[in-house]
């Protein structure tokens, strides 16, 4: 049975007994109190009886109503007291009935006395009356006596009963004290003897287990809480034993974990060293784009020290621009953060270092993600591509060179080809189509006479040359084998013409040999003839030399003559012009003045004469103009009066007004005094001739005229946009007019020490360039 149950049962048992005793004691006390009341009542009744006896005597003696009322009042209380008597025991009940009976009789006696005393009859004698009184008094005395006696007796009985009850109560109190002692004793037995002993056993057992002996089993025969505890202990011990068994595994795990941590630390260190040793610049940022890491290459490229770059915005540390557009480049970090993917850099990106230098780079930005896939930053990887660009440029140049060189064999007019040792064409230039026979096609095998020759060269492993006839033409083909590379280079040269020439030569030689025989005997006589002819020839050569010398002399004199002719012509013109001016011109002017003078004199006198004279004036004027025109055409006096520049200007103006479809653009870059006087006429005549030619033959509408002085020469250029001409045709009879003009210009120029050049382009125009060295 469980200790708890035992304890509850003990408590209930003792509690019930205690309640019973307590109730009994209480009931006893109540009975004691009631008995005491009844005892007092009985005493009062005895007293009341005595009082009633006294009051009745009093009334009887004095017979006054006052005494009557007192008795009646006292009797009423006495009667109440009697009525209140309530006893239990039979003996006491008998006494109570007696008391009640005596009371009733007393009442009756007194009432009879009182009525007798109250209504005294006439006939009644005093004597009688006295007797009556005596009898009544005696009756009442008996009754009172009886009441007192019964009441006393009752009081005595009740007192005895009360004492008995008190004894009972005392006994009950003792019993309760004893019972409490018994309870304490029982509790002690239960707690100390039973529980503590078991506890001690348990404690001893735990001490054994605690010392490490996990195989010890605590006794568990009891079926109470301690038994449960013992069993729990045993279970615990068993579990502990299991746990202890896994402890070694735990320790092993701890060792492994420590090793893993060490590996992780080593890996981190390795990673840091790797990033620091990597050839590329590496910059890591957090998600706000602030720098968290720079490796040494990044430090070198950006110019930012690692410490000062920390927590700086990435755009100030890694400042990139587009080299060509000269604009800030795309923000890679933001892009990588927002798109959560690797972002490559655009071409032509340059990094602007802290000092403002620009370094061309290539880079990419990748988001850094944790194991949950959250972006925790960005890593930028970039490298300097200056060298790469240079290398690319060199490569490009080399490629261009290679392409350029590759054209070289294609442009070769002679056949060049390369064939494998098996006779398959690896390369052939366009010219080799002819010797291949089937066009120029790579991959096909060589055919015809070329193949055995190539094979022969290959087996011989040395260069071989051979003449091969192909498609009616003859080629000198040389084959250079490259056995290590397993191919041959074939170089061909068309020698058909040479062959033909050789053949012809051979034929000739043959003929010659045939002829030699006939010749030999002819030689003799021929030699003689030749000698004679030789002599004759010598004479002729001498004659030729003499003629040549004479011709040279004549040419020189012709040249001299030509110059003189030109000078004479010019001189003549000048003279004729002067004559016209001085004689005809002046005479006409004089006539005009004369007529005008006469006119003023005769104006008033003779109107007819005036009219006639007036009509003469325009005629004279016309003659003067004509004379002047002739004179100017012969040789413009302006050339002498004002110089070449004014004359050029005048002549061009006149030319433009004559040939209204032709415009002249003049470019004069020389001062008048810089033109030697001897050249004035030549320049004018060349210009005159040139422009007249243009007007007559060129169909041009634009002439560019340039007269300028350079450091070494005076240059005159006349250029037109006309139809041009063929210089060779000019020399033919059809182009005589033009030819004569050109020759005249050339002659004038050359005679004045200048050089004359004409560049006609058919359909485009003509340029005449004249230059006089200073």
């Amino acid at each position, binding site marked *: 049975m469980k200790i708890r149950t035992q304890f509850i049962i003990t408590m209930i048992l003792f509690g019930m007994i205690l309640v019973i005793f307590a109730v009994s004691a209480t009931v006893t006390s109540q009975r004691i109190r009631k008995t005491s009341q009844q005892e007092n009542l009985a005493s009062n009744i005895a007293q009341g009886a005595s009082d009633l006896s006294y009051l009745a005597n009093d009334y009887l003696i004095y017979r006054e109503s006052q005494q009557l009322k007192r008795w009646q009042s006292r009797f009423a209380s006495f009667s109440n007291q009697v009525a209140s008597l309530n006893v239990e025991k039979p003996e006491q009940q008998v006494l109570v009935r007696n008391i009640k009976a005596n009371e009733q009789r007393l009442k009756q006696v007194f009432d009879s006395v009182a009525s007798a005393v109250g209504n005294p009859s006439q006939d009644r004698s005093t004597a009688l009356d006295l007797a009556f009184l005596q009898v009544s008094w005696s009756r009442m005395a008996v009754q009172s006596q009886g009441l007192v006696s019964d009441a006393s007796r009752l009081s005595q009985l009740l007192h005895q009963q009360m004492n008995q009850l008190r004894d009972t109560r005392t006994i009950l109190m003792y019993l309760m004290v004893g019972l409490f002692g018994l309870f304490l004793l029982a509790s002690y037995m239960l707690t100390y003897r039973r529980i503590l002993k078991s506890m001690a056993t348990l404690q001893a057992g735990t001490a054994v287990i605690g010392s490490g002996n996990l195989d010890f089993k605590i006794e568990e025969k009891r079926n109470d809480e301690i038994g449960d505890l013992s069993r729990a202990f045993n279970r615990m011990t068993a579990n502990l034993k299991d746990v202890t068994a896994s402890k070694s595994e735990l320790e092993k795990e701890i060792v492994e974990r420590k090793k893993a941590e060490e590996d992780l630390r080593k890996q981190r260190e390795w990673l840091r060293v790797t990033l620091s040793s990597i050839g590329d610049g590496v910059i890591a940022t957090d998600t706000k784009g602030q720098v968290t890491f720079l490796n040494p290459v990044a430090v070198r490229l950006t110019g930012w020290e690692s410490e000062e770059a920390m927590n700086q915005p990435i755009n100030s540390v890694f400042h990139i621009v587009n080299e060509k557009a000269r604009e800030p480049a795309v923000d890679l970090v933001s892009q990588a953060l927002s798109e959560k993917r690797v972002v490559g850099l655009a071409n032509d990106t340059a990094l602007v270092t802290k000092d403002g230098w620009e370094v061309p780079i290539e880079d990419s930005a990748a988001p850094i993600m944790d194991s949950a896939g959250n972006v925790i930053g960005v890593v930028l990887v970039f490298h300097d591509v200056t060298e790469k660009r240079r290398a690319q440029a060199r490569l490009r140049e080399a490629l261009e060179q290679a392409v350029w060189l590759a054209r070289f064999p294609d442009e070769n007019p002679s056949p060049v080809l390369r064939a494998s040792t098996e006779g398959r064409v690896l390369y052939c230039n366009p010219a080799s189509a002819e010797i291949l026979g089937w066009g120029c096609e790579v991959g096909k095998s060589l055919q015809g006479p070329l193949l055995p020759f190539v094979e022969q060269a290959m087996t011989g492993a040395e260069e071989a040359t051979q003449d091969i006839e192909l498609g009616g033409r003859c080629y000198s083909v040389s084959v250079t084998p490259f056995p290590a590379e397993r191919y041959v280079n074939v170089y061909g040269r068309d020698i058909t013409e040479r062959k033909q020439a050789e053949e012809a030569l051979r034929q000739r030689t043959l003929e010659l040999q045939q002829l030699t025989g006939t010749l030999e005997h002819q030689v003799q006589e021929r030699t003689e003839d030749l000698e004679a002819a030789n002599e004759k020839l010598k004479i002729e050569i001498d004659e030729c030399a003499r003629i040549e010398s004479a011709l040279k002399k004549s040419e020189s004199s012709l040249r001299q003559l030509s110059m003189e002719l030109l000078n004479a012509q010019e001189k003549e013109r000048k003279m004729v012009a002067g004559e016209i001016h001085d004689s005809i011109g002046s005479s006409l*002017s*004089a006539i005009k*003045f*004369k007529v005008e003078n006469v006119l003023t004199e005769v104006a008033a006198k003779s109107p007819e004469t005036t009219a006639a004279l007036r009509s003469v004036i325009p005629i004279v004027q016309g003659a003067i103009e004509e004379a002047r025109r002739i004179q100017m055409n012969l040789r413009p006096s302006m050339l002498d009066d004002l110089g070449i520049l004014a004359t050029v200007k005048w002549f061009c103006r006149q030319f433009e007004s004559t040939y209204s479809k032709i415009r002249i653009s003049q470019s004069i870059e020389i001062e008048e005094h810089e033109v030697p006087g001897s050249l004035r006429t030549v320049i004018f005549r060349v210009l005159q001739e040139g422009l007249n030619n243009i007007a007559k033959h060129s169909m041009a509408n634009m002439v560019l005229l340039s007269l300028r002085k350079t450091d070494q020469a005076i240059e005159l250029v006349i250029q037109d946009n006309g139809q041009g001409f063929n210089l060779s045709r000019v020399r033919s009879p059809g182009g005589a007019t033009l030819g004569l003009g050109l020759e005249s210009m050339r002659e004038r120029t050359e005679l004045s020490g200048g050089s004359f050049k004409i560049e006609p382009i058919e359909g485009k125009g003509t340029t005449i360039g004249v230059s006089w060295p200073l």
Partner: protein
Amino acid sequence: MLRVLIVEDNRIFREAFKKGLVDYFPSMVIDEAGNADEALQKIEGGPPDLIFMDVRLPGVNGLQLTQRIRKDFPGINIAILTDYDLPEYRQAAVQYGADRFFVKNSFEWDDLEVLVQSISPGAP
């Protein structure tokens, strides 16, 4: 009394022109020179008020002579006489310092009168 010098190498024209001047301006004192040396000699002898100067002269021409006279005698009025009514000649006349420009065969005597009246005699 206006003193005039005609510098002209052609005798026929010189005399015809002189005759014309005399007829138009009877009070005019007219002298003549056939070339530059003669002209300079006459001017140094007594500067005229007005010179009619032909362009074409033997040796130093009229324009060069004008330039020289202009330098030594800035007060003398010089009118260029020429056959050619061409801008090149007018421009040259101005350039060499002449005051007037007359075309020999087409000037109006009235224009000459305006010129003569504008010159006060004995100014230099």
